[in-house]
C-alpha cells in the first residue's frame, strides 16, 4: 500500500490500459474472457482499449518478441508520459500468456488488477513497482530456501 504522503488527488484517468490478445494461448485467453468484467469494474476510472483479434495479430506480427507471451496487458502511466514521454519509465505490463494453467493465469490477473487499483494514486509509481518486484523476489528466495529445508527435513 502506498504511504499516505505518497498519494495525489484523482483528476481524470491516470492510466490507459491496452489488451492485446490474438487468442493464441487458449488457457490465458479464456481466463481473461471470463474475468474481464472484474478488471473493468475495478478500473472504471481508466479507459481500457481492447485490440480486436485482427489488430492483435497484426500487432504481434510487428513485435515478434511478444509471440507466445500474449494475452498482453500494457498499462500506460499518463502522469509519467506527460513528464518524460516514453524515454524512461512510463507504465508496466503483464504477459498473461506465460501462465500455463487457469489457476496461474487467474492469480496473475487478480494480482495485476489489485496492483492497478492500489497504486492508482501513486506519486512515484516506478519506485513502488520496483519495491514490489524486490519484495516478490525476496519472497521467492525465502520460498526456495524453505522448500530446500522442507526437502531436507522430509528426507
Amino acid at each position, binding site marked *: 500500500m502506498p504511504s499516505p504522503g505518497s498519494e495525489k488527488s484523482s483528476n481524470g484517468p491516470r492510466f*490507459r490500459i*491496452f489488451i492485446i*490478445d490474438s*487468442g493464441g494461448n487458449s488457457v490465458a485467453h479464456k481466463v481473461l*474472457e471470463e474475468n*474481464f468484467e472484474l478488471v*473493468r469494474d475495478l478500473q472504471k476510472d481508466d*479507459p*481500457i*482499449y*481492447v*485490440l*480486436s*483479434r485482427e*489488430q*492483435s495479430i497484426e*500487432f504481434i506480427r*510487428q*513485435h515478434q518478441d*511478444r509471440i507466445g*507471451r500474449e494475452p498482453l496487458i*500494457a*498499462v*500506460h502511466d499518463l502522469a509519467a*508520459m506527460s513528464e518524460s514521454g*516514453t*524515454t*524512461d*519509465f*512510463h*507504465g*508496466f*505490463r*503483464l*504477459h498473461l500468456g*506465460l*501462465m500455463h494453467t487457469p489457476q496461474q493465469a487467474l492469480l*496473475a490477473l487478480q494480482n*495485476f488488477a489489485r496492483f492497478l487499483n492500489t497504486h492508482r494514486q501513486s506519486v512515484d509509481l*516506478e519506485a513502488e*513497482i*520496483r519495491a514490489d*518486484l524486490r519484495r*516478490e*523476489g525476496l519472497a*521467492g*528466495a525465502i520460498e*526456495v*530456501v524453505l522448500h*530446500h529445508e522442507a526437502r531436507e527435513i522430509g528426507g
Partner: protein
Amino acid sequence: MPERWSDYLTILMSALALGYLVYEIDRRRRKLHDVFDVLDADDARITARLEDMVASGALQPYAGARAN
C-alpha cells in the same frame, strides 16, 4: 586446511547447495520480470504504436462488449 576427504566433500556439497540456491533465486527473478515488469525505453516503440492507434481513432475505449 581440511584434513579428511569427508571435509572436502562437505565443503563441495555446501558450495553446490549454495550455487543451486543462487541459481534458483535468479531463475525465479527472471521469470517474475518476464511476466510482470515496467515499461521503459525498450518498450517505447510498442507504446508509441498503441498511442498512435488511440490518436488515430483505430482504438476506442471499451464500452461494454469485448471486441473479440
